[in-house]
C-alpha cells in the first residue's frame, strides 16, 4: 500500500503544480456555478437539475484528468520507469486511482459553495443534497476507473481523453436508446446505463442496486486497467 500511496501523492501534487491541473479545477468549479445559475432560474430551491448536469460534467472531468495518468506518462517516457520499479500492477493502478480521486475530491469540495448558496437563499431539502453528493463520489470514481483503463491502452493523451469520453457517452447513450425498445433489451440497456442509476440520488434515495452498479463499474475499470498494463509488457 505504501507504494500506491507514494504514486497517489506524487500525482496529486503534480496536478496542482501544473497549469492544466489548476485549470481543470477552476473550469469544473466555474461550470458548476454556471449550471447553478441556469437551474435557479426556475425560482425553486431544488438542486436535482444541478446534480444531474454535474454527473455529466464528471464524465468530462474524469476523461481530462485520467488522460495524464498513463497516456501522458507514456508520452513523456516516465511510465517505463514506473513499470520497471518493483511495484505490482494493482499497486500502480490503485495509486493512479487514488491520485485522481484526490484531485476529484478537491474539485468536488469547490462545488460545495453551490448548495450552501442555495441554502442561504431558500430552504432546500437536505436529503437529496446529501445523496446527490454520495452520487457525485460514486459516479466520479467509477468514471475515473473507466478513464484510467482507456488511458493505459494508449500513449496519446488526446486519444485517451476522447476514448474515455466515447466509452462514457456510449454507456450514457444506452439509456437513451433503451427508451425506443421494449422487453428485455430495454431492461438490459436501462440497467447498463449510468443515467438510470443516478435518478435515486437526485430524489434523495440511496438504493443498494445503484451503489452496486457504480462500485461494479469501478471494479471493472480497475481490473481492465491491470489487464491492459500486463498485456502491453
Amino acid at each position: 500500500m505504501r507504494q500506491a500511496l507514494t504514486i497517489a501523492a506524487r500525482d496529486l501534487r503534480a496536478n496542482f503544480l501544473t497549469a492544466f491541473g489548476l485549470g481543470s479545477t477552476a473550469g469544473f468549479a466555474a461550470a458548476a456555478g454556471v449550471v447553478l445559475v441556469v437551474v435557479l432560474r426556475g425560482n425553486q430551491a431544488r438542486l436535482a437539475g444541478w446534480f444531474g448536469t454535474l454527473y455529466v460534467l464528471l464524465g468530462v472531468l474524469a476523461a481530462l484528468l485520467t488522460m495524464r495518468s498513463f497516456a501522458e506518462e507514456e508520452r513523456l517516457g516516465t511510465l517505463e520507469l514506473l513499470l520497471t520499479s518493483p511495484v505490482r500492477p494493482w499497486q500502480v493502478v490503485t495509486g493512479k486511482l487514488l491520485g485522481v480521486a484526490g484531485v476529484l475530491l478537491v474539485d468536488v469540495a469547490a462545488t460545495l459553495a453551490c448548495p450552501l448558496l442555495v441554502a442561504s437563499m431558500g430552504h432546500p431539502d437536505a436529503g437529496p443534497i446529501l445523496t446527490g453528493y454520495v452520487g457525485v463520489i460514486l459516479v466520479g470514481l467509477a468514471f475515473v476507473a473507466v478513464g484510467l483503463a482507456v488511458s493505459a491502452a494508449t500513449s496519446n493523451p488526446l486519444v485517451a481523453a476522447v476514448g474515455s469520453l466515447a466509452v462514457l457517452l456510449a454507456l450514457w447513450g444506452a439509456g437513451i436508446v433503451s427508451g425506443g425498445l421494449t422487453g428485455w433489451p430495454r431492461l438490459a440497456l436501462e440497467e447498463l446505463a449510468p443515467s438510470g442509476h443516478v435518478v435515486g440520488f437526485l430524489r434523495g434515495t440511496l438504493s443498494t442496486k445503484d451503489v452496486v452498479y457504480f462500485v461494479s463499474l469501478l471494479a471493472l475499470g480497475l481490473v481492465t486497467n491491470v489487464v491492459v498494463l500486463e498485456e502491453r509488457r
Partner: protein
Amino acid sequence: MNGAHHGVELEGVTRRFGRSTAVADVSFDVRQGEVLGLLGPNGAGKTTTMRMITGYLRPTSGTVRVNGADTAADPVGARRSIGYMPELPAAPPEMTVRSYLRFCARLRGVPRARLRPAVAGALGQAGLHDVGDQRIGTLSRGFRQRVALAQALVHDPPVLVLDEPTSGLDPRQVVETRELVTKLGRSRTVLLSSHLLSEVSQLCRRVVVLDHGKVLAVGDVASLSGGGTLEEAYLRLVRD
C-alpha cells in the same frame, strides 16, 4: 539455477512484435561484479533486450533471471535488484530533482529513515548537488541525463542496466559518466549498451555483439579484437 548466480542470465530469449522478431534466441550472462557491454548498430535489439531484463517487456519465449529471480515467476523480486537508466532521460518536468529522487526511492522500497541519505548519495554520485532544488523541466539535456542516472542509483541496486548512458552528453560529461560507470562497476553488476566501440572497449572487459536481434559474438574485448582493434572485429562480424 546453477549455484549462486547474482548477475543477469538470459536463456534463449526471443521477443516478437506482431510478425517482426526484434530479439531472436539470445543467450548470455552478465557476471556479478563485471561491466558487460551490449554492442550493436541502431535497431540491433539492444533496447528490447534491456527492456526484457528490466521487466518493461516480457519475452515471447526464453527466460531471464536477475540476481537469481526469474522475471516471469517473480517479476517484482527481479525488478527490486535493478537500477535502470532508459535511453531517453525521462522525468516529470514539474518536479524538483530532489523530490523526484525521493519519489523513486520510496517507490523502490527504501525505508523512510534511509530516504534522506539515499537521495543525498544519488545526488552526489551523479554530480547534481547544485541543482537538487531545481525543477527538472528547467535543466539542460546533460543534467537531465544525470537525473536519469541518479534515479537508477538511488535505491542502491546490485544490478545496473544503462541504455546508452553517454548519448547526448558533451565531451566532459561523457568522460565524467564513464569514470562513474567504472567506479560503479567495482561493486555492482553493470550491463551497458552503446553503439560506440571506443566506449565499450574502454569500459568493459567483455562484450556481447548484437545485430538484427541475434548474438553475433560474446567474449573478452581482447580476444574478440584478435590482435587488431575492436572496430575491425566488429565490422567483420556485422558484415558477415
